[in-house]
């Protein structure tokens, strides 16, 4: 997993609430047996007319050259629906390291963190401020300080993250490394409970 410290970048806004995992990556793209290559199908059905890559929908932000960057900004309740980690892989593979929303579905949040994608939960008001910026505005996400800043206006907000997950992300460790390191405790637990 790649570590995250500070991300300073422009952002891609998808101003829709309740974006479910079927929209992030439709089920028909879940047939791969590796984690790579999902990025080109991110938001597939919102991105193209009739599933045709030669016909991008002009009004969808990912298709607009004005928008770019490592930060995806989306409406409230992002990532609801299925447990498919492919949603997090698609976001990472499309070049995003941070997703900003005012609410995240549980499983998505875990999946993102497990893949080095940082979910930043902000207030509704702050989210609206970001959506109101023009496409050149950069955001700064400082994981160490747990702070997101709209560079143009210097408005800031603090965000929460579990301290264990924060350490993992800052250092690029994952949960499996940790769990494998306590295998003896797990074996002891098993003998005690059976």
């Amino acid at each position: 997993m790649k570590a995250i410290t500070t991300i300073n970048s422009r952002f891609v806004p998808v101003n829709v609430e309740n974006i479910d995992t079927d929209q992030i990556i439709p089920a028909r793209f879940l047939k791969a047996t590796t984690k790579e290559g999902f990025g080109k199908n991110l938001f597939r059905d919102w991105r193209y007319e009739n599933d045709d890559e030669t016909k991008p929908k002009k009004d969808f932000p990912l298709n607009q050259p004005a928008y770019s960057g490592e930060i995806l900004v989306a409406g409230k309740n992002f990532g609801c629906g299925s447990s498919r980690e492919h949603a997090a892989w698609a976001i990472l593979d499309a070049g995003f390291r941070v997703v900003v929303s005012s609410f995240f579905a549980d499983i998505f949040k875990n999946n993102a963190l497990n893949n080095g994608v940082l979910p930043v939960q902000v207030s509704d008001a702050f989210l609206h401020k970001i959506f109101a910026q023009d496409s050149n505005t950069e955001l700064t996400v400082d994981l160490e300080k747990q702070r997101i800043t709209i560079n143009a206006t210097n408005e800031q907000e603090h965000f929460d993250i579990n301290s264990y997950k924060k350490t993992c992300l800052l250092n690029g460790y994952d949960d499996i490394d940790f769990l494998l390191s306590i295998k003896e405790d797990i074996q002891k637990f098993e003998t005690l409970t059976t």
Partner: protein
Amino acid sequence: MSKTLFDKIWEKHIVKTIDGGPSVLYIDRHFIHEVTSPQAFTGLNKRGIKVFRPAQTIATADHNVPTLNQHLPIKEELSRLQVEALKKNCAQHGVELYGLGHPFQGIVHVIGPELGITQPGMTIVCGDSHTSTHGAFGSIAFGIGTSEVEMVLATQCLLQSKPKLMRINVDGVLNKGVVSKDIVLYILSKITASGATGYAVEFAGSAIRSLSMEARMTICNMSIEMGGRCGLIAPDETTFNYIKGRAFAPKDAAWDESMAYWKSLYSDNDAVFDKEYHFKAEDIEPMITYGTNPGMGIGISEKIPTTETINENDKSGLSKSLTYMGLQQGSNIKGQKIDYVFIGSCTNSRIEDLRMVASFVKGKKKANDVEVWVVPGSKQVEAQAIAEGIDKIFEEAGFMLRQPGCSACLGMNEDKIPAGKYCISTSNRNFEGRQGAGARTLLASPLTAAAAAITGVVTDVRELLN
């Protein structure tokens, strides 16, 4: 100190707690399927480690499998590759696989309970959000992502923070024509599709207690649609009677020992929940969804909401949803023309669901221009339906009984609803494109779906019951 059902199970499974962080939770049972496991096995192989407790892992192929001619090789190449990868990974790691052709094969959340693998007081996970289904037995059961599948394969543990606790009480007696699917769609319409995010949800109350195990599973199945981490119902005689005698149920002395534990699994009288709701069974009528998340449901006699009448949560999405669905604000849902009927999925594909539909359609015929698919949840459900002659009833009604799998619930195999067509479905998700690109899904109970199959339009099933 008084404890909730959730607390009792949770505490029993904590290996250790990290300061300022999550807990290490021991997992009793791990179900895997072909879609969310390949990358986890690749991860294990990269680390050069084996599955830690293969005997606690159970595999099946369900998401991708065809529902016709299952004896033939899978035509679609990528689906076939995933199913083959599962076979290879299970063989390499010593995991039991109930794959295609096995008499136990079926949708992962249908087979666990019917085989007696799912038991009260357990921690159960699967790389699938509807793992919440197993909570109907009084277990902590939740969906996980593929990295977490890898963690459980590697260590039989997960890192988890304890969720907040919610209790939803439904008391009273259900009206005629109203079944458990209607209860859960009703709750969803009240608390919305994100109403339980961050919570473990216990369902309680006399209406819940009166339900069979299969009906309880339908409710817990959809707790994820409220955003809940898991849903659970305290085990009781109904639960114990259901488990007894099943293939992997404890036997003899082990049964008595299990029962002693199971009987301790309930929320103490004065246990405190972070949030609590109360609903009356009498207020619930047959439900149907009109929108593109499962919280967008109404009683069958109600009108589709308008921007003025809808709850705050769905306001901004209403017109987008209705455009996708081709429906009008403020109009009746009853009478809406239907093209497809899908009776299946881990929500409603068990033998009771098929029996309910069969007893309703017996002697009736489907409407001419409607296609009706009934997809049993497992090989065992299919065999039972045939043994009871349910297949004949369906045949006479013009319903097509297919072979077990997830099928049109998510359209990963060839069972897709064409763009623009209306499908009344007993599954759990009406998201845009869920049943096929452009497909329009109306979620309902098996009874309401069967009524629409007969009339060809959205129908109040109560008008057809005598």
